[in-house]
């Protein structure tokens, strides 16, 4: 069958044109005018959430009646989340609610979020009541850009270690709360189990770098702007470059010592795995974790594919944590949103309505979970936690956890969640909570400094290099890259922020 190339091309163009027309026709057909305001919610999901429509409908059933708003949730890849949100704005795509994670407060910096102070005053009374002084999640130039999700904020950095080994070697767990006690314990364990790794690196191979070994001199560390070279400590509003402190040097030398003694994995700087993985395999003595202090027992979890042995664990607190806005999940409103008021109303309802909150976190009522008569919630028949069809991965930190129903798998006390949130009042806040560093004035220097950090920090913190040689080099290069200017600018902004906070 002979066809000339030319007519093929003509037909091709026709097909393409039709596609474009059909597509634009489709999008137009969806724009029905309604009394119900529809808002979109951009969120990241860690797990799989194929039951999206069921859950959306369940949410909408509640909100439609009460406030006349419906929501459409869209999920994103975590790693490039801020870039993708930015692109959507660049592409003039409508967005309304935008989830924020940790130090992705750069969203505010890039013009992606809108200030919400007025909206909070008008429609967010319940949010204000629940959050209290934690409300100002991200404040830049005196304006608030986000609402934090209220979960349990009282955390303690702990060293999780093998209870059976500790008991076997007659170590007093309380003694391990000091560095000397910890090292003594490590020595004993190493002597008894020479093949075992004693302590694992946490994210990116950091073994003990930032956890305040120097507890007499350093407490309440808050790392500003998501970098380790802008730090405030001891409730002192002086911004310090952590890398230049004696504390850091002490910690590095300690880790180097551990490396030489064989306590530490040799590959910690380059491994792709989370170091604590080998704990579940019996080959690791301890790892660093962050425990929810409100009564949660430490439960080792069975990891895919590993043997089903779980080890009883002691959880030993080793540092004083502060509540920092850098560690929080929250939500903001997109700067190009046309339904800002509906968004705030929706959020306000989320913070108080028990059913709505539980739905967003755990799935649709009577489909994924059901309410018992005693006020507790339990998963429905056939739904397994972990594979329920609504695994956003953020069940415990979305909305206002205090408003969610308590699940039987967690506690028998229907007020458990409320107590968790109440416990937040006793959590120490960083004095810089809500501070959002605008790095624009020093972006060149920060770029150069970040590059230096990437070059040296991990190697130093893994214990595999000589601290006395490399640390001075590291600091010298930081200075050459302009770190002092960055610190000064951060100090200036922090002082302004604290003054405004009154």
């Amino acid at each position: 069958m002979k066809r000339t190339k030319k007519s093929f091309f003509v037909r091709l163009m026709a097909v393409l044109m039709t596609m474009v027309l059909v597509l634009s026709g489709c999008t137009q057909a969806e724009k029905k005018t309604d009394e119900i305001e529809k808002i979109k919610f951009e969120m990241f999901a860690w797990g799989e959430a194929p039951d999206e429509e069921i859950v959306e409908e369940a949410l909408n059933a509640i909100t439609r009646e009460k406030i006349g708003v419906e929501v459409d949730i869209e999920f994103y890849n975590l790693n490039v989340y801020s870039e993708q949100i930015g692109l959507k704005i660049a592409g003039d795509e409508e967005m309304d609610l935008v989830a924020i994670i940790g130090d992705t407060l750069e969203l505010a910096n890039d013009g992606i979020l809108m200030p919400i102070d007025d909206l909070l005053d008008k429609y967010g009374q319940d949010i204000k009541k629940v959050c209290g002084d934690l409300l100002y999640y991200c404040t830049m130039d005196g304006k608030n850009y986000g609402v934090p999700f209220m979960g349990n904020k009282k955390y303690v950095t702990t060293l999780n270690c093998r209870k059976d080994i500790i008991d076997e070697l007659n170590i007093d767990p309380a003694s391990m709360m000091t560095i000397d006690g910890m090292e003594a314990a490590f020595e004993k364990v190493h002597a008894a189990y020479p093949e075992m790794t004693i302590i694992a690196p946490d994210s990116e191979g950091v073994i003990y770098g930032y956890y305040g070994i120097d507890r007499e001199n350093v407490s309440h560390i808050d790392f500003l702007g998501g970098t380790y070279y802008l730090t405030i400590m001891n409730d002192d509003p002086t911004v310090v470059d952590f890398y230049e402190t004696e504390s850091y040097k002490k910690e590095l030398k300690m880790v180097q010592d551990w490396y030489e003694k064989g306590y530490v994995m040799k590959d910690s700087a380059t491994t792709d795995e989370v170091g604590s993985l080998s704990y579940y395999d019996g080959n690791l003595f301890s790892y660093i974790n962050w425990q929810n202090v409100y009564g949660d027992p430490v439960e080792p979890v069975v990891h895919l594919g590993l043997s089903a042995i779980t080890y009883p664990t002691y959880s030993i607190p080793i540092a004083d944590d502060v509540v920092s806005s850098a560690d929080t999940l929250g939500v903001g409103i997109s700067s190009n949103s046309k339904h800002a008021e509906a968004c705030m109303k929706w959020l306000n309802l989320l913070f108080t309505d028990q059913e709505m909150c539980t739905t967003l976190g755990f799935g649709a009522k009577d489909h994924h979970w059901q309410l018992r008569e005693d006020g507790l919630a339990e998963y429905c028949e056939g739904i397994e936690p972990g594979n329920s069809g609504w695994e956003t991965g953020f069940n415990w930190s979305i909305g206002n956890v205090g408003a969610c129903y308590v699940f039987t798998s967690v506690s028998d006390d229907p007020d458990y969640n409320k107590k968790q949130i109440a416990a937040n009042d006793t959590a120490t806040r960083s004095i810089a909570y809500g501070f959002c560093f605008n790095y624009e004035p020093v972006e060149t220097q920060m770029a150069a400094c970040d590059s230096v950090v990437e070059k040296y920090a991990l190697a130093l913190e893994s214990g595999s290099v000589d601290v006395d040689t490399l640390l001075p080099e590291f600091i010298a290069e930081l200075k050459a890259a302009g770190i002092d200017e960055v610190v000064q600018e951060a100090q200036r902004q922090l002082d302004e922020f604290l003054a405004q906070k009154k």
Partner: protein
Amino acid sequence: MKHKQTSLSKSRHYSILYLMMVPGLLYLLINNYLPMVGIFIAFKKLDYSAGIFKSPWVGLRNFKFLFATSDIWIIIRNTVVYNIVFIILETVLGIWVAIMLADLANQHLARLAQVTIILPELLSLVICSYIVFAFLSQENGIMNNTILPALGLRPIGWYNEKGPWPVILTIVYLWLNIGSQAIIYLASIVGINKELYETADLDGASRFQKVIYITVPCIKPTIVTLLLLSVGSMFYSSFGLFYLIPHNSGMLFDVTATLDTYVYNALMHKNNVGMASAAGLFQSVVGFILVLTANKITSRLDPDNALF
């Protein structure tokens, strides 16, 4: 019966040719040229809510960070030297493998080989970095646990030692690319008129002479084209190769840092599109100048093979 080409039929001949090119050129216009306005982002601070056109101009500020490091010469040296070495090796080895494939009497093996050597193109570089780690891991790596002991050598902290890495990276690069190079050259070799070889045989030419005097000259256009195009990427590097494979180990910086890894590390904590765009523009401009120059030289020496 001979047709004389009248001017009418010649112009009709040409118009059909131009018409054929329309879909391709249209696509390039839409996909490549329209977005090129994005080059201006290199001179702006991108405010997403204002959009590309209304974001404020900042002049050359976005370029400053590229030169704010004292390591700029190491970075440029690495980028350029690796590129030169890679280009030379992949060309020579690519042609060599292609000739072997063309000469294989067992054509089944040749076809199997072609399919095999192109497989590395399928592997994501992240997975490649896991595999390299499998070899070079200090505790469990195949090198330290199997190969070195067999040779009677002590284990090495691979990710901390600078020395072996230029070789390691070159080996990985060749593993990834030699297949595609060979296949491109093979296509040209196959197109060479067999009569040339038969004549040479009659003249008693040795195998080596045939390669030098027939094969290589006949594939010269391909070689020149590939070389000219590589020149344009002189300031680019494979991010996966120089960042992922060495796991961004700081100790290896002097031999693995390239312009692309520097930009990534510097901008990692911020999504600064303006600065990233500036870096890209810098690389593009240098590449452009190099290609223009190389092409000019080629036009003088070998006009048929110049790119334009």
